[in-house]
């Protein structure tokens, strides 16, 4: 049984000392998921090697901002996928990427999915031509501002304010 306290401790332990953190020089593939503006961006770098006639993952690294669950999952996943082929990794479910955490509650599944999306972005064959960028979400599907939006984005759209000191008397 993975109680909320147990899970939090496992996530904290994995996020406190993340493995494979940082950009990987000379990577063969790079994948990104999430949005930097909202602080939940995750980027993964992958380098392959030949082993027994197969192309397997030699090393994977990541960078992430924001969600510590995503950091924990990415740390565990980059260890787990070493030695696997791209096809084997693509066949893994989000839960299989971080078995050390145990089952995650639904409210944290999105963190695992973020890592899975970044991995798929790096490992899936790229289309010959670049697709057109998606249009902005319509008002009907746009998300409400997140907590992070509220305290990291400027409160006024008019740019940098001028600071006017008040007199002390």
């Amino acid at each position, binding site marked *: 049984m993975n109680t909320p306290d147990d899970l939090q401790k496992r996530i904290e332990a994995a996020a*406190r000392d993340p493995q494979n953190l940082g950009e990987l020089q000379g990577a063969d593939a790079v994948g990104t998921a999430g949005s930097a503006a909202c602080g939940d961006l995750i980027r993964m770098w992958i380098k392959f090697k030949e082993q027994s006639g197969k192309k397997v993952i030699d090393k994977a690294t990541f960078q992430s901002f*924001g969600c510590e669950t995503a950091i924990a999952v990415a740390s565990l996943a980059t260890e787990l996928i070493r030695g696997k082929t791209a096809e084997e990794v693509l066949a893994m479910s989000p839960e299989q990427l971080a078995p050390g955490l145990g089952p995650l509650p*639904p409210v*944290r599944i999105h963190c695992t999915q973020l890592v899975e999306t970044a991995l798929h972005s790096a490992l899936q064959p790229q289309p010959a031509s670049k697709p057109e960028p998606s249009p902005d979400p319509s008002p009907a599907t746009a998300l409400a501002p997140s907590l992070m939006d509220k305290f*990291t984005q400027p409160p006024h759209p*008019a740019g940098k*304010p001028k*600071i006017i000191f008040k007199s002390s008397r």
Partner: protein
Amino acid sequence: MNDSITPHDAMRRVLEIYPGAQRALFRRFHIGGCASCGFQPEETLEDLCRRNNLDVAEVIRHIASSHQQDQELQIAPRDLAALRQKGPVRLVDIRTREEFEAARIEGAVLFSQPLMQEILGHWPRAELVVIYDHLGRQSLDAAAFFLGHGFTQVRCLRGGLDAWSSEADPAVPRYELEYAT
């Protein structure tokens, strides 16, 4: 206008009636903190709970108590000053760099993406962290964000740096922000 919420209300209405609802949702259920766990304004509370496998009645009770939760998150300037006399307190300033350089509480660190990663990865979750802004309007959201990430002793400075200057340390200059029109 009826000030109670029902499972069929859109999140927009829930937030109108309970401005602290989003903070309450993230603190307890990890919902609404970032784009990945966000919700749409027109999504109903019932739908939000269904896709997150939550009991809607429990969520409504939790949201209804959000005002009290917000009160408990705040620390008064004089109380913070008294704590600082006993020992160092981790202070996080979430204003702009320009404001930080113009006036700040001594010992505070300016919030940034790298600092956030440092906080989430390395700061002790059971130690006091006080977050402040200019007037105390955004720091509640920041405190709730870190509470939702397991920081049990995070607080925000009531009234922000402006109140700190008025009530605890007049050496820190007060200021206003003027935007180009």
